[in-house]
């Protein structure tokens, strides 16, 4: 019996890294937006936070696009 530990290990590593990374990015993005919400409530703006937020979301969108690419172009 041959168990493909390498494949299992890489699935584990990739899942862990991607999930934590994506969720962290998204959380940062949401934080940025919520900062704008707070700033707007006080009459100010949070341009830096909002820019950062959109960068984060763009990265997440890229990851989703890559996911769709993987689904469509099955090896």
């Amino acid at each position: 019996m041959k168990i493909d530990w390498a494949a299992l290990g890489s699935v584990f590593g990739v899942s862990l890294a991607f999930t934590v990374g994506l969720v962290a990015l998204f959380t940062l993005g949401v934080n940025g937006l919520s900062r704008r919400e707070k700033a707007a409530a006080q009459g100010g703006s949070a341009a830096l936070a909002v820019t950062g937020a959109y960068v984060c979301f763009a990265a997440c969108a890229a990851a989703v696009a890559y996911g769709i690419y993987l689904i469509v172009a099955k090896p």
Partner: protein
Amino acid sequence: MESFSLILAIVVVTALAFDFTNGFHDTANAMATTISTGALKPKVAVAMSAALNLVGAFLSVEVANTISKGLVDENGIRPEVIFAALTGAILWNLLTWLVGLPSSSSHALMGGLVGATVASAGFGAVHGDMLVTKVLLPAVAAPIVAGLAAMLATRFSYGIGGKADGEATRKGYRAGQIASAGLVSLAHGTNDAQKTMGIITLALVAGGAIAPGSNPPTWVILSAGLAIALGTYIGGWRIIRTMGKGLTDLEPRQGFAAQTSAATAILASSHLGFSLSTTHVVSGSVMGAGLGRKGGVVRWSTATRMFIAWALTLPAAALVGAGAESVTDLGDWGTAVVAVFLVGASATIWKISRREVVDHTNVVADTAEPAGVVTTAIAAVTPPPAGTVAEDLSATIPAPAVTAATATDPAPAAPPAAAV
């Protein structure tokens, strides 16, 4: 399609029925957390999932080809064997749906195939180590991989996110959850609809209707995609309830982490060639997300029943598959008997399910929320809700709110052991 015999027609119809139960059973994978956190309305969620499943079915035929080309010896297999295998898989899917437990449709299908093959050609025809590497190991690995990822992601997210709690936060996680749930649906369509296409193609080859090595014909792709989409849209609400509310309580942020972890693990595993079952991945990630939040609880009694169902999936489907194959072996009337039995048993399960209806109206209702023994003990500070009047069975079971699942399958009244 000139030599389209009756048995072939039966197999195709049964395969589509299996595809339907597959979609029906697995809606929960993509949409349970989305529904339970309120990111999407139940009907909208299943409609979206159904549409993406349909799209996914058309995206590629790679998976279908691996099933219909090479995995099984195309010369040795008869349509009756496939029919018997599908019978086992469908019945197991319906039974687990009745008790509201998520279990892998692929394992049910493999179990049915193994059982039917053993009954038809003996134990030598099954590769034992294939079974371990392709079925057992992934079943153990999937929830651990996805669970750990979801747990760490949840913990991290709460760590850096603090207590952000505005409109932007709510909307943000809602959108994120919908996106990742969509990915899971799409991946499910490409994988599971194609399994059925593979089976139908295999049957067509076995019955001599198309040449060995052909791609699935267009009508097969179309009907398989439609069957799984229809099943998804009708929705296995019982399983959605277990997955979305039964295992743990999820906040939107946890739902997002769970769904992202599930999508990532599914894509990574199918891309890197170590296939994990969608059901196992999602269950694991839901539990992981539950554990990741401070004060989060996983209802281990529900989880334990789910694990037992996983362990039983393969042998149970195999047993039915083997039994069905021995009966079809008796001749054409045997096949008819199996067909009648399949329809009868499905109808019976459906009938039993009507005793307590779970649908989109009460899928997230709090009164219907399964309260495990452990959870009840933790929540003992608050007075338990009045026993649900609708269920006369609740009198025999100490837990205050008895679900459909616990009613049909009384949970062991184990003392509260692990509460994390």
